[in-house]
């Protein structure tokens, strides 16, 4: 019998909803092919065993060639565990908005966690939690961050394939508008006045929402260097209030540093538009 030379894959969960891990299980047509190429060693969502040995532990055995990490860091225990996982992983890739930007649970970063704890839980003394929800990259070096809430199936396969082949994943850094136009969509902002975050949102979904006539709500997080002054002004023009604008940016990628100026931009008096568009007759 040949020794098993397949690279090993591990999938980890932190504070998250499991949706991104499920994306891997959703790769129904590719899963068997994937299992030919990698040994899925640690994946609690799929199996309670570690390389066939039961039971698998939360810490795994390792080492692993590729670790996919879902979820954000919200407890002391998470902090310890992510350092351990980094030590036993050759490559570490974060999957999804929680692992990459802190997730929707990072809304706590803008509020008082003690108050939440006291209000939400009947016995708050049993709840051990950090005051913030932080992305994996705030704790350990990350080899690649895959965006989305949840991630896109094809992009996940591309990242795994690229790491297997030892090449750079083909995951473009531009805005959703690029994908929207390449798909031949009619822009919902221009043709219908629908607010759309596409111009400041990282591509990856294939412009899913605009393809179905809805505005993008930014689940893939910010594009590099977004012009939020211009975006906030346009969202107002399309009928959103300051409060709505703060809220739409404070979802799955709420803690993205790129979004930090939004709160102030959206709540201050709208600045004079230097070049107000002519109102169509």
């Amino acid at each position: 019998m040949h020794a098993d030379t397949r690279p090993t894959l591990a999938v980890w969960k932190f504070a998250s909803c499991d949706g991104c891990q499920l994306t891997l299980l959703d790769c129904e047509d590719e899963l068997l092919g994937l299992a030919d190429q990698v040994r899925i060693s640690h994946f609690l969502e799929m199996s309670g065993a570690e390389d066939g040995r039961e039971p698998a532990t939360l810490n795994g055995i390792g080492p692993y060639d590729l670790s996919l990490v879902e979820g954000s860091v919200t407890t002391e225990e998470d902090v310890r565990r992510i350092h351990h996982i980094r030590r036993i992983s050759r490559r570490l890739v974060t999957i999804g908005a929680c692992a990459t930007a802190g997730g929707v649970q990072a809304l706590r970063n803008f509020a008082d966690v003690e108050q939440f704890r006291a209000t939400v839980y009947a016995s708050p003394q049993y709840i051990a939690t950090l005051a913030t929800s932080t992305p994996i990259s705030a704790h350990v070096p990350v080899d690649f961050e895959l965006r989305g809430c949840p991630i896109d199936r094809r992009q996940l396969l591309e990242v795994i394939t690229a790491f297997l082949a030892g090449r750079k994943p083909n995951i473009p850094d531009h805005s959703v508008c690029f994908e929207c136009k390449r798909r031949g969509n009619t822009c919902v902002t221009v043709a219908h006045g629908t607010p759309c975050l596409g111009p400041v949102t990282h591509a990856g979904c294939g412009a899913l929402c605009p393809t179905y006539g809805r505005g993008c709500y930014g689940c893939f997080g910010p594009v590099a260097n977004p012009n939020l002054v211009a975006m906030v002004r346009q969202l107002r023009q399309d009928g959103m209030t300051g409060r709505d604008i703060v809220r739409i940016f404070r979802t799955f990628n709420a803690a993205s540093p790129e979004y930090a100026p939004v709160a102030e931009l959206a709540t201050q008096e709208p600045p004079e538009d230097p070049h107000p568009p002519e109102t169509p007759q």
Partner: protein
Amino acid sequence: MSTTTTPAAEGAVIGKDGLATLVDLLRARGFTVVGPTVRDGAIVLAELESADQLPYGWGVELEAGHYRLREREDGAAFAHAAGPQSWKTFLHPARVRQWRAERSDGQLVIEEDDTPPPRFAFLGVRPCDLRAIAVQDRVLTGGRHRDPVYQGRRSGAFLVAVECTEPGATCFCASMGTGPAAGPGYDLALTELVDADGHRFWIRSGSPEGADILAALPTSAASEAVCETARQAVASAADRMGRTMPDTDLRRLMAGTLDAPRWDDVASRCLTCGNCTMVCPTCYCTTTEDVTDLTGDHAERWRVWDVCFDLDFSQLHGGPVRPSARSRYRQWLTHKLGTWYDQFGSSGCVGCGRCIVWCPVAIDITEEAAALHDWADRPDGEP
């Protein structure tokens, strides 16, 4: 030799039934007919199975960053401008596979993608877009290296131009010298007339193949009066353009204003979303994407649209050459209006107005050019 000075009645006249026959005839001859049709609240370009799908009775209201469909009482089919796509979608597609490679038993086999393209007939090519196709012809097939994808799609294409009688508020072809009358390059040209004498089209051929098709259509003779009415309608469209480009040497203007403060001003408004470039009928830039499957035994190379607003577009070792919005907007405008002349001997802008309409934040190429012109003309000493 003719001695008359009045223009002779040329071409012929067809009715709506003639237009329907034209679509049927082109389809019967094996063409994939593409033309305007209403979809998703816009007049888009799509394959037509019959002339019934044309946007009869629909017009558009255009402004910077603004597009709305409007019903028209006259039932005209071609009284609209600046839709979300241009013919480049079909001639220079957003994604094409260039080759694939298979590895088996240690052997690598590379297979070029040579699926024969459809033979297109484009119905409703506006004069500005006719010029845009000529501009892309020069860029993609006019040099030493011809693009086989474009050439394969372009060489068999049959172009039915429709002159403009209803320009939009964002149109400025008259000031770019590209419309509203159809220039050369069409197989057939139509001018739509809807008045007391009915709904009809003045039709002329511009090629032997066009003449051949025209001969097979149910036509009536074009009277002097029809030709004159049609010419008048087109001429008056030139006076109703919503925008104008400054009347100056644009190439010199671009080269002389590289340090203008206006670039910072426009950069503060620009989202660098790339919409203007992707809707522009002459922008041709692409990038390459290589994909492999999980086994690594199968690889494909794809070519996809890319534009100068993408940070990756100018990525070299160490980072992008044009990291700022200012440098990227300036690249777009100076290429369209300036360096295009040096590269290809013409303007890269044909005045279709698409970049103005489809910019989500209403940035207007004519307004930016005018502001640069004002700055260049400022009295000495002003910053």
